[in-house]
């Protein structure tokens, strides 16, 4: 009953991976080049930013919260580092990246403090900061864009340069996946994130500070958004107020497709990554197979609904069992 194959099939991630493989297979039938390793790596590279963001959002959602401000945080930090780079091209890029992560984490901490200390529902807090952060981006830049011509070559080149045949951007994603995997599965903090989401009351009994855990989760999502601020701006070589506008919902969608339960406590690094890849593959495959790109939105919407329905099936809660004969059966 608990044989290995059985246990593996219980994991929804396996199903999602199978669905993705099937999807790639279907696309390859019409356009074989799509399934070539080189192209798949390109798709992965193109999806890297979404993957990293989805990982941050996952941590927040696991604690029964939600962070709607990630895309705005990204725009703000992206603009900040782009302007810093334009004004002081001499500052080395790694320093800028660290700055971006720090600023992002600070914005996340602002959300987190409001959730932790004032007990304002996360959705309200981040709905507010969603507009505040983006507005602040406009104020910061005075509405002007920072274009390629104002960025230093190193700023643009870093994530494009390759290491072991893979672009650095992909390495960022790979490192993030590895790091989040370790954090979520192997550290007390990671496990307390799950515990808080599964059962806040029981977490208190187990000696976990629920509010503080949520606070740290928001710091992480902020930090990740800050990092992606740099990655986004240097990837698309433009920093503007409109950067990643509305992207918060794509991030959440990636998590949801990946089986992260909005009610908290359920979800995995693999799931979030696969959810993001699913969206990424659809996005890059549609133009290739000559399906009008106008189908993309409807397809991802359908995928979200399907994913939620399937996940809900798997989660059907059982009642308690009082009758001895039923318990034995």
């Amino acid at each position: 009953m608990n044989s290995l194959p059985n246990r593996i099939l219980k994991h929804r991630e396996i199903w999602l991976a199978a669905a993705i493989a099937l999807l790639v297979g279907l696309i390859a039938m019409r356009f074989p080049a799509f399934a070539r390793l080189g192209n798949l790596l390109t798709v992965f590279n193109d999806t890297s930013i979404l993957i990293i963001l989805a990982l941050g959002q996952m941590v927040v959602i696991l604690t029964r919260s939600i962070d709607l401000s990630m895309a705005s945080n990204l725009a703000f930090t992206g603009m900040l580092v782009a302007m810093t780079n334009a004004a002081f091209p001499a500052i080395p890029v790694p320093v800028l990246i660290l700055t971006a992560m720090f600023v992002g984490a600070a914005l996340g901490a602002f959300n987190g403090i409001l959730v932790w200390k004032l007990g304002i529902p996360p959705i309200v807090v981040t709905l507010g900061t969603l507009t505040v952060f983006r507005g602040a981006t406009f104020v910061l830049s005075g509405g002007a864009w920072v274009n390629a011509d104002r960025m230093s070559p190193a700023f643009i080149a870093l994530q494009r340069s390759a290491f072991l045949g893979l672009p650095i951007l992909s390495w960022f994603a790979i490192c993030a996946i590895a790091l989040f995997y370790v954090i979520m599965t192997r550290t007390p903090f990671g496990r307390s994130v799950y515990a808080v989401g599964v059962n806040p009351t029981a977490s208190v009994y187990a000696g976990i500070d629920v509010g503080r855990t949520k606070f740290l989760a928001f710091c992480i999502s902020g930090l990740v958004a800050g990092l992606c601020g740099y990655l986004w701006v240097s990837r698309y070589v433009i920093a503007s107020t409109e950067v990643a506008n509305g992207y918060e919902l794509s991030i959440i969608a990636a998590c949801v497709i990946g089986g992260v339960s909005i009610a908290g406590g359920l979800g995995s690094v693999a799931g979030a990554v696969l959810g993001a890849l699913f969206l990424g593959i659809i996005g890059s495959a549609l133009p290739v197979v000559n399906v009008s790109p106008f189908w993309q939105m409807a397809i991802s919407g359908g995928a979200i609904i399907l994913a939620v329905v399937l996940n809900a099936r798997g989660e059907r809660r059982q009642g308690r069992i009082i009758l001895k004969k039923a318990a034995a059966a």
Partner: protein
Amino acid sequence: APAYAQDNVKIALVVKSLGNGFFDAANKGAQEAASEIGGVEVIYTGPTSATAEGQIEIVNSLIAQQVDAIAISANDPDALVPALKRAMDRGITVISWDSGVAPEGRQLHLNPSDTDLIGETIIKLAADRLPDGGDVAILSASSTATNQNAWIEAAKKALPEKFPKINLVTVVYGDDDSVKSTNEARGLIASHPDLDAIIAPTTVGVVAAAQVVTDQNLIGKINVTGLALPSEFKQFIDNGASQAVALWNPIDLGYSAVYLSHALATEKAKAEPGAKLSIGRVGEVTLDDTNAAAMAAPFQFDKSNIEEFSKIY
């Protein structure tokens, strides 16, 4: 009727979205016109994202401010008509420039250049480098942008007669959004392995396409051309991702928009088919049947002159 009692003639320059370098340059020209004419106040405004709803809210507040004229580069030719009509009903002069609105929503439209000429030029930029012919694709801005659609129509018309060896494989839309344009450019390259050139008649799209070609090491294989601001695009001429691009002078365009708005608002000129209107230092234009006028021919930038122009706009 315009309020002569007030010292200043207030002219609103409404752009598709704030922050776009092309419009910032146009604003420069607008301010030049204002100080040249004297007694003119230019309000430079636009939504943050290029939507018609955003522009409508702005038009409403401009009506309330009782500006004397609105010169708009529209995000949608139809959706803005009701709001602009209302502005005209309240005695405000309305013209469109760059990207037009339907004739009933404005008094005149100022095309930066002759539509057919632009259409032909963007193809020619690509064709010049493809003596044996080849596949080209167009990366446009928003699918509702009037000017883009008109140019693409003109380009398609010019193809069979003047460039028989050039094969236009597809038209995609990047919505003047860097991310969307980048993704569309990638899609083009992936789905058309034999592509020789990407033509982007939009300053946002052309930069995105050139960046993608640079990133994917396709310099020399795919030539990016289109309409580009020299200051934003210089690096791609330098690195060879593009051989040449074209554009008109956005400064002159903004200048002319304000100049014409002022002339109409102060009733120094009248917009009617066939009228010849002066636009100060730029010269003069003639209105066609739909009260539209075209300015000069697009100007080409390549290795020889981009350095010089990138310092101007």
